[in-house]
């Protein structure tokens, strides 16, 4: 019984949150890795792209709510999501037309594009704060829990509860659907294959008659979808605050690099590696150990390796450790 209680505590505070957070990071990292693989630069504006997508979705959610439209037990934000994606796609295509296209025509070095993307980042950052403000926004509605901790206790008779939030299940299910669609698109469709070809060998892709401007446009649209979905899922699960999204850039980049930049499978693996390490390193294991150890050995401290304030340090530590042993990431990514 004690072992089951320990397992329930672990699932409730470590496994489920880490899987959820990992899915969100994986979606974010997929966007970063797509841009790196196809447009060949690290996009520092990705966190703020996520913020913009989430903000647009929130605005549509509010509008729908004001009209009395709801999605039953599911959050209204899911209905607003396609509109958020469309708005973000327009923003990214516009940014590409106004900013990136110019540098592409000059065949600017990747490092210049990185700095350019930082400029874009600041503008998007300001745009989002200007429209929705810098404060926390909670936009989750519908049923909050699938199983609440109390229900779980009465249902199983265990002394520990396991809460399963709607947002967590939605996150994982949506992430699986999005990733499956993305891989199907890249592997099976003509456009998807042409994107991989362009990423693999730009000159040969041109010789084969692949239109680079089309590849770039489709990439931005995919990135808009990935970033908006990742941002909305994160916002539903926690809350939306522009600054938090800007900060998400760090674990997202760590995920993409750990997995191998430019490799979509790696981005997913990297997302989970970073999420699990962040959550396990900052979790206080006292409650789990209480059930597993004899009373006399019960830990007096929290058994927390690091305070949650240091969670970003974990991403970087993992990043450095992986890169020391595998410079192109866990999966073979492109070396810079």
């Amino acid at each position: 019984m004690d072992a089951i209680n320990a397992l329930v505590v672990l699932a409730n505070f470590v496994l489920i949150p880490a899987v959820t957070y990992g899915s969100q990071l994986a979606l974010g990292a997929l966007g970063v890795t797509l841009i790196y693989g196809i447009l060949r630069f690290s996009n520092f504006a990705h966190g703020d792209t996520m913020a913009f997508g989430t903000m647009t979705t929130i605005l549509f959610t509010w509008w729908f709510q004001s009209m009395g439209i709801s999605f039953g037990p599911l959050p209204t934000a899911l209905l607003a999501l396609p509109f958020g994606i469309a708005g973000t796609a327009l923003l990214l295509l516009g940014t590409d037309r106004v900013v990136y296209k110019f540098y592409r025509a000059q065949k600017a070095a990747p490092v210049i594009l990185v700095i350019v993307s930082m400029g874009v980042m600041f503008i998007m950052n300001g745009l989002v704060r200007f429209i929705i403000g810098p404060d926390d926004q909670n936009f989750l509605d519908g049923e909050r829990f699938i199983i609440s901790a109390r229900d779980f206790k009465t249902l199983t008779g265990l002394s520990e509860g396991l809460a399963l939030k709607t947002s967590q299940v939605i996150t994982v299910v949506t992430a699986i659907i999005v990733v499956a669609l993305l891989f199907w698109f890249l592997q099976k469709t003509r456009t998807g294959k042409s994107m991989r070809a362009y990423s693999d060998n730009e000159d040969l892709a041109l010789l084969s008659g692949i239109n680079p401007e089309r590849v770039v446009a489709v990439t931005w649209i995919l990135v808009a979808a990935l970033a908006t979905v990742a941002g909305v899922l994160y916002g539903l699960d926690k809350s939306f605050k522009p600054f938090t999204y800007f900060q998400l850039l760090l674990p997202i980049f760590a995920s993409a690099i750990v997995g191998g930049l430019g490799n979509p499978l790696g981005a997913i693996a990297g997302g989970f590696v970073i999420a699990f390490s962040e959550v396990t390193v900052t979790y206080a294991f006292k409650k789990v150990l209480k059930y597993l150890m004899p009373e006399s050995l019960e830990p007096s401290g929290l058994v927390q390796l690091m305070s949650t304030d240091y969670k970003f340090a974990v991403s970087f530590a993992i990043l450095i450790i992986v890169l020391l042993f595998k410079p192109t990431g866990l999966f073979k990514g492109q070396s810079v």
Partner: protein
Amino acid sequence: MAFLIGDGMTGGYGAGPDILHDCTIAVDKGEIAVIVGPNGAGKSTAMKAVFGMLNIHTGAVRLDGEDITSLSPQARVAKGMGFVPQTHNIFTSMTVEENLEMGAFLRRDEIADTMAQVYDLFPILKEKRMQPAGELSGGQRQQVAVGRALMTQPKVLMLDEPTAGVSPIVMDELFDRIIEVARAGITILMVEQNARQALEIADKGYVLVQGRNRFSDTGKALMADPEVRRSFLGG
């Protein structure tokens, strides 16, 4: 009149100095023309000029009588020219079959027949069609590269040192395949380091020196020419 001709081409890369000087390369329909010459003679440059990859300020390129001097390389692909670069000529992360599909990207019709023809020409590719092309051996990669270019059903196939870096046995095999392609009615223009073998299969040979035509004749005549033998074929 030659099917494909780069006539009196003079020019170089970007704003740099001229590399080609009044250089003429021509090939008749269904024939094999080979460009040979010492290192730095401008062999690859001449071929790239024919394909539109560098600017020629004097001279013209004509395909089947049509002036294509101002067309981009991509537009020339659409006109029926296939080009196999010397290096980076395959999509390494994609399967053999996907490489062929990408070769046919411009085509909107059914490509299965062309793909079957490529597999008939290179049976080993059919065996490995689901394998990433980057995992193949050097000779097999060259077959993928040639196969990719054939997927557009080109009228002219241009090969930049197709046998660079492959073993002599594989080289002979590649030359056999190239002859087979030519017999199917596809005009071939190629640059070769292995001058002797290349001239043996060539209907027409061009020896370039410092961006100029030095000798132009049939492959056999060049092989028989004592001066060409002494200077370029090692006796």
